[in-house]
Structures are given as structure tokens and as C-alpha cells.
């Protein structure tokens, strides 16, 4: 059997039309996510939606539906007015140029916010912070320990104050009280940044903004930072299955490139740092 170009063209277009049409009829064709986070499979919270699975493509309405709380709380917290807007627009609203180096207000912050509101645990990223408008909402609606909220307030972004770390005057209090105060968000290394050195020496705000938070593994932490904080190669390798990146390599990027889950690696490194007294 021979076919010519016209027949082939027809077959191609027809296959697309029929294939897409049939998948639509049977309800399989979806160009957007279901907006339903995956459920936690094990443990005390089994069956509940996992805040870690919140995607940037969710709208604020989706968020409220998925986690069964009033989306207005989250919108007030993040200064958003349109409930149909997507979470990933936060990264545009809170442009990185406005925020202190190494911090971010984006989907990660929303995940953490949801975790605090619902009490469902989440391993939050240390570089995700909240705008100051989130603090009263958390005080009113979350079940988190007030000491934890105090710590978050210390790190919160205040519009007009680009050098937010300078607005974190009580890092020691945050660092000491937070871990014990986060039963609902365990493990939450995000609240244990312990930036004691910069605060104690009170350098210029810009200097503080560029200094890595000692002992807190974040998405910006390099292998050199880990070594500077007291972890030798052998200890780092014990957390990374015997491999290690170059000094300048960012741990998160290095892990992603090798298919390692950064959150898991971060927990191991954080434990090693804690054992080393950092």
C-alpha cells in the first residue's frame, strides 16, 4: 500500500483531532493540574493534603478549597487582591531585587504559611520568608506557637525596608525558641537560622544582607559554606552518599543535578551541623 503526502497530512491532522477529541470525551484531556495536592501517605497526618505539593499554578481559591480554609487569610497575608491570580505571581510581586539576598517570597512561603495554618507538617525552605502582613494573620488563625511567630516576624519582609535581615534584631531568641516551638511544622530548619554573628557585630545593613546565615542550609548554601561552618569532607560525604561537589558548587543545584532530594539532604546536613555545634 502506497501513501502520498496529502494522505499523510490528512492522517496526521486526523490523528490529532481524533486523539484529542476521544481523550476529551473520556475526560482524560487536562491541560492544567487538578489543583489537588497529593495526600500524605503515612503517619499521623496520613490522608491529609500535603502542603509540599502546592504548585505555583494554584490560584488562591484553589488553595482555600484544597486545604479547607478561607483563602482571604492567605490573600491578606501576602497582600493579594485577586483570588483568581496564581501563586507564582508572588515572585513577581515580591521581586528579588526588593528582598534581601538569599530570601524569597513565593510559592515556598505559601506552602509554609499553609502548614502553619493547618498544622500539617512541612519541611520548609530556609530562604522562604513572609511579608510582614502575614504575621497578624498567623497570630489570629494559625495554631503555631507564639514564639515561632515572633521568630518569623523578626525575619519578615517589611515593604520599604529592603535590608530585611537588619530588621531581625533578635536572632538569638528566634534561634533558641523556634525549634521547640514548631511541633506542627517539623522538621522546620527554616526557623533556626541563628544568624548570631552578623547581628552581634551589627555591620551595615547591606553587609548583613549578603552574609550567609551561619549554620542554616538553604538553597544558596555552597559546599564551601558547609566547610566554613565546620563540616569536613568526610562528614559531608556521609550525607551525600560518598560524593561531594566543588567548593563553589551550590548544594541544592548539585543535588538536583544528581537526582538527590535537596530537602532530605538538607535535613542530614542540618543534623550534622547541629552535632558540630552550629
Amino acid at each position, binding site marked *: 500500500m502506497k501513501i502520498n503526502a496529502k494522505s499523510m497530512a490528512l492522517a496526521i491532522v486526523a490523528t490529532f483531532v481524533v*486523539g*484529542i477529541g476521544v481523550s476529551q470525551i473520556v475526560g482524560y484531556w487536562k491541560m492544567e493540574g487538578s489543583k489537588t495536592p497529593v495526600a500524605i501517605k503515612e503517619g499521623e497526618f496520613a490522608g491529609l493534603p500535603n502542603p509540599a505539593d502546592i504548585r505555583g499554578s494554584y490560584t488562591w481559591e484553589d488553595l482555600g478549597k484544597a486545604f479547607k480554609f478561607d483563602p482571604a487569610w492567605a490573600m491578606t497575608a501576602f497582600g493579594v487582591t485577586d483570588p483568581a491570580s496564581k501563586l507564582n*505571581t508572588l515572585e513577581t510581586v515580591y521581586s528579588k531585587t526588593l528582598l534581601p539576598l538569599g530570601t524569597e517570597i513565593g510559592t515556598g512561603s505559601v506552602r509554609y504559611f499553609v502548614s502553619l495554618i493547618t498544622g500539617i507538617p512541612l519541611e520548609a525552605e530556609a530562604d522562604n520568608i513572609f511579608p510582614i502582613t502575614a504575621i497578624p494573620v498567623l497570630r489570629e488563625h494559625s495554631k503555631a506557637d507564639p514564639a515561632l511567630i515572633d521568630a518569623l516576624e523578626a525575619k519578615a519582609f517589611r515593604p520599604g525596608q529592603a535590608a530585611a535581615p537588619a530588621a531581625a534584631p533578635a536572632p538569638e531568641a528566634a534561634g533558641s525558641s523556634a525549634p521547640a516551638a514548631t511541633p506542627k511544622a517539623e522538621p522546620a530548619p527554616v526557623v533556626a537560622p541563628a544568624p548570631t554573628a552578623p547581628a552581634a557585630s551589627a555591620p551595615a545593613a547591606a553587609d548583613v544582607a549578603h552574609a550567609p546565615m551561619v549554620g542554616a542550609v538553604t538553597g544558596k548554601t555552597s559546599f564551601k559554606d558547609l566547610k566554613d561552618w565546620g563540616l569536613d569532607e568526610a562528614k559531608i560525604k556521609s550525607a551525600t552518599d560518598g560524593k561531594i561537589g566543588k567548593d563553589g558548587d551550590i548544594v541544592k543545584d548539585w543535588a538536583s543535578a544528581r537526582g538527590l532530594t535537596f530537602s532530605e539532604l538538607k535535613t542530614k546536613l542540618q543534623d550534622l551541623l547541629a552535632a558540630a555545634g552550629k
Partner: protein
Amino acid sequence: MAVVNKKLQAKNVRNLRHIIQAAFFVLVAVTVTMEKLGEAGIKIPILPSGSLHAICPFGGVVSFWNLLNLGTLVKKVHESSVVLGVIGLFLAILFGPVICGWICPFGSFQEFIAKIGKKLFGKKYNNFIPKKIDRVLRYLRYLVFAWVSYMTVVSGKLIFEAYDPYFALFKFWTGEVALTGFIALGAVVVLSLFVERPFCKYACPYGAFLGITNLFRVFGIRRNAPTCISCNACNKACLMNIDVASAKVVRDHQCISCLECTSEVACPVPATVEVMSFAGQAKDSYAEKKASGK
């Protein structure tokens, strides 16, 4: 008169392919643009809207493992990608990688840049790389495919996005493209001035996947040796530099089923380079053998 008709027929077939390519290019561009405008609150009901990943069949391909083993899709991939992946595979089993030759907007983009290259370099265009080196380089895309597939499976993320020139082309204005994506796109644009479809030949993981179907596709490109006048018109026309003129059936893993080599377009002799089913080829082969008394 016959020559005029032949030229007209060739032009019509080329136009047909180019129209389909242009239509899909516009469809993808509109879909992606509308998605971004939708985020800004601007919605036009008639026009399609969706993420680039939602309409990329390769997302469906790399999600198969997750789908089978975990029942979930890779992040950013949606069910539509799986449907398109299945459609692409079905078409490839029938006709070879027609997705590459007729649909892929990035292939179309490279062909567009190639027009400039052809004007600049004339007959030298697409013949810069020595054949020995070129032959080896053609297998690079399988390494890319293996790496992308493995990393996507272990990470559950679309690892290739950061390096994907196709993503960079359609999303360059959104701020979502990584520097590596821009570098890849720039490299493809420059290389396309010298080589036809360089990304398809050397790096495309989806092309690598679909290319395998050339080994067993139902409808293959066949050269009828008894009527062939060995003019090499088919070789000159081939975008992928395949040696059609010495093949009986084109089984090269790089064929993109563009049909540029066939008697409908480049080959000047009717019924000499054609698309035919395996059954037809076998019957034809039997008749040839019988005629030659073998």
C-alpha cells in the same frame, strides 16, 4: 509541460507541509502567550491557553515511568502531554517521526533559519561537517535522551527545561528561561546557519526516541532501484543528510518523514521514491526478484 506539472506538484507538497508546520507553530505560540496573558487577567475565550509543558508530547514520554510506577505525572506535566505523547508514538509507528518533520515548531524554526544559511552558503550549506564526525555526533541525542529520562525519573522534575532551546524560544519573554536555555537557543540559531536542523540531528531527546521507530515503522520510504536514475536528487533534498540514493528502504534512525526526497517532491522519476507499507514493500520485492529470475 510535464516538467512544469512536476515542479507545481513539488511546490504543492512542500507548501502543504509548511502550512501544517506554520499552523502548529502559531498554535503553540498563541497557547503559550494566552496562558501568560491569562495570568495577567487578560482572557480571550476563543483562543487556546495552556502551559508549554501541557502541549509538549515529550513531557508525556518522560512521565510514562512515573505514571506506571507511581501513578503520578512529573511536575508541570499534565494529562494532555501524555495524550500527545501517545499520538506522537502512534504516528511514528505508522509513518516514522512525522512529529519532527511536520509538526514540531522548533524543527520549523530551524528550517526557517536554514533559509538564511542556504542564501549565505549556497550548495555548501548543510555540508560543513565531515561525514565521519557527523555520523558519530548523530548518536549524541541518544545520550541526551538517556540522561534526560534518567534524571527526570529520579528527580520527578522536568530536568531538561533549563537546557531546552524549544522552551527558551517560546518563553524567552516570560522571565522563566534559565541562562543555559538562552545559550542553547543561541547555539542552535548559529548552527542552523550552517547545518540543517542541528538540534534535531545532534541533541533532541524526543527526536531520538521517535527516531527508533524508523527501524520498524509500518509505512517506510522505499527507493525503487530499477527506475532510479542515480541523480542523487533525493540525497540533496534530504534535510537530515540521509543517503537515500543507495538505500532500498530508508531505515536511517534520523529520518523525519518530511517526504522531501520522494517522487512527489525531489525525485524526478515518478514512483521511484515513495512511502509504502511493509506489506507493499515485501510484495514489490518479491515481484522484483521474480522478474530478475532470482
